[in-house]
């Protein structure tokens, strides 16, 4: 079910501004890959190019190739909507749909895409909520609005919503930065469970988190303000945090950055 991502020579722009330049990497299936790096180095931009959300921003465009199991996401005739069904995304701030109940939020992806039977819907919702470790907390109030949950629960609701459409890859853009340590722990545990099924890519500012949850870690950096961000190195998480091959990585993770 999980798919491999092969990126080669990827450059992304916001209008005339080059945000990231010439990034090539491979994201292994059934593993967690963490992106770390200073603010503005293009981690989030790069993440958003992986499911064509980058081009939703006015002026956003991309050059290069992103292969999802050897199929180019930016090839001619590729439908971005179809890409996003394969590559799901969880955002920095929990964003449940305010007009929908907990049930409807999880079912949203299926309902809005159509072609689902009502009887199946309840099963999918339960399975997704169980998958997101949220079922026991909300099973008695599925018809209550999703916005009434706590921040950590909302974020897990968003994860449940993302996995309900059964994507192959799950992108997470700083999913814990708005959460307390206990909710963070819940989501980190969840990632360990989800990586058995999905390819997970996570952007994080928390290096301990990257060290805890990820199998491989990529370090991004930028040469200066206004310069495009680049991939500095990608390696097994253990090596990155113990014996990185580039000096800049070691400076960054040991706090001697700048």
């Amino acid at each position, binding site marked *: 079910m999980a798919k491999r991502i092969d990126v080669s020579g990827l450059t992304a722009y916001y209008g005339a501004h080059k945000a990231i330049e010439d990034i090539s990497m491979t994201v292994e299936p059934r593993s967690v890959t963490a992106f770390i790096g200073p603010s503005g180095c293009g981690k989030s931009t790069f993440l958003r190019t992986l499911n064509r*959300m980058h081009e939703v921003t006015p002026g956003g465009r991309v050059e290069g190739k992103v292969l999802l199991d050897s199929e180019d996401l930016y090839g001619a005739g590729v439908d971005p909507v179809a890409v*996003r069904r394969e590559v799901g995304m969880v955002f920095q701030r929990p964003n449940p*749909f305010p007009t929908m109940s907990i049930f409807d939020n999880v079912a949203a992806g299926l309902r809005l895409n159509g072609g689902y039977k009502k009887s199946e819907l309840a099963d999918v919702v339960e399975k997704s909520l169980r998958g997101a470790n949220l079922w026991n907390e909300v099973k008695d109030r599925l018809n209550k609005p999703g916005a009434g949950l706590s921040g950590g629960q909302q974020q897990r609701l968003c994860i449940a919503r993302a996995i309900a459409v059964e994507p192959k890859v799950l992108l997470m853009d700083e999913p814990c930065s708005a959460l307390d340590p206990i909710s963070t722990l819940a989501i980190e545990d969840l990632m360990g469970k989800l990586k058995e099924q999905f390819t997970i890519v996570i952007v994080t500012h928390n290096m301990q988190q990257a060290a805890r949850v990820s199998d491989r870690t990529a370090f991004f950096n930028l040469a200066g303000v206004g310069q495009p961000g680049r991939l500095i190195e990608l390696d097994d998480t253990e090596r990155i945090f113990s014996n990185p091959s580039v000096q800049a990585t070691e400076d960054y993770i040991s706090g001697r950055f700048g």
Partner: protein
Amino acid sequence: MSTAAIAEKRPSSLRGASLPKWSPYAIALGSLALAVLIGTLGGLHSRVQWGLIAALLFILGTYGVSARVEGRRQAKDRVATSLVWVAFLLAVVPLVSLVWTTVQRGVKVLDVYFLTHSMGVVADTEPGGGIYHAIIGSLEQVGLATLIGAPIGVLTAIYLVEYGRGRLAQAVTFFVDVMTGIPSIVAGLFILSLMLIFKMQPFGFAGSLALAILMMPVVVRSTEEMLKLVPNELREASLALGVPKWRTILKVVLPTSIGGITTGIVLSIARIAGETAPVLLLVFGNPFINTNPFEGAQSSLPLYIYQQYANSVGSGAAYDRAWAASLTLIAFVMILNLGARGIARWKAPR
């Protein structure tokens, strides 16, 4: 020596002298009494003058008393508060006065008979008759105008917020701004010129078209603002689920903002329900009941009010009917507003 003992001996730097809570009312009463005194002694007959003098005395008095007791900063604070209150009262007085006058004069002939009969066999100078034909006309014309204006307005706003980039969007925004400023009589003349080209007689739907022109820019503007309030994160969340853009707009963006959009539409309906000029030009007025908006002259509430008042010289009956129709119109608009508030509260994201 304990610290508490020291604190007691020293005067607190945090707590200054302050006026008692009832002081604003006392100052208000005092300045009112003084204003009445000045008014009677000075031989001023207008109650408005008395009120203005009282307001002035109140502000000056507040500043004087407060500055002496509490200090200048608190005095300024109190003056700002009293200015806000005075402005509020100045705004409310005409409103209350208008509603009061309309109710007082309107209830004279307003009854079920008045609401269910037309002016068909009643001369304008005679008592009797009613506004049934005008209510029918108003409902049909405004209803048809809403059916045309609201969808076009909402769709335009969706285009501007969700899709519009570059020249075309700029041009649309510009023309919507221009349309907001079109005087209603000009919208009426525009439709009239078309009617003259095709040699048509006045009919209700022509009025609807002019009203729709007046309504559209208001709907566009209010809907635009409401759509801009929808957080971008919701759009992205939906798009990231693999939902096409049009479904995202239909199922996520619109439901989130539906309360505000409805309020905007209802307010614009309230605005066109009171339009007289285009109706006068295009629908002409008709004392008989005409339920077909596509053929023959009709009446409408504002037009009825205007025509009754214009014919009220030497006839108390027409005068009373004009006020009763005004009361009906105000009630209609008020019910619409209450309905809009209800919908907005019901549909608001929880």
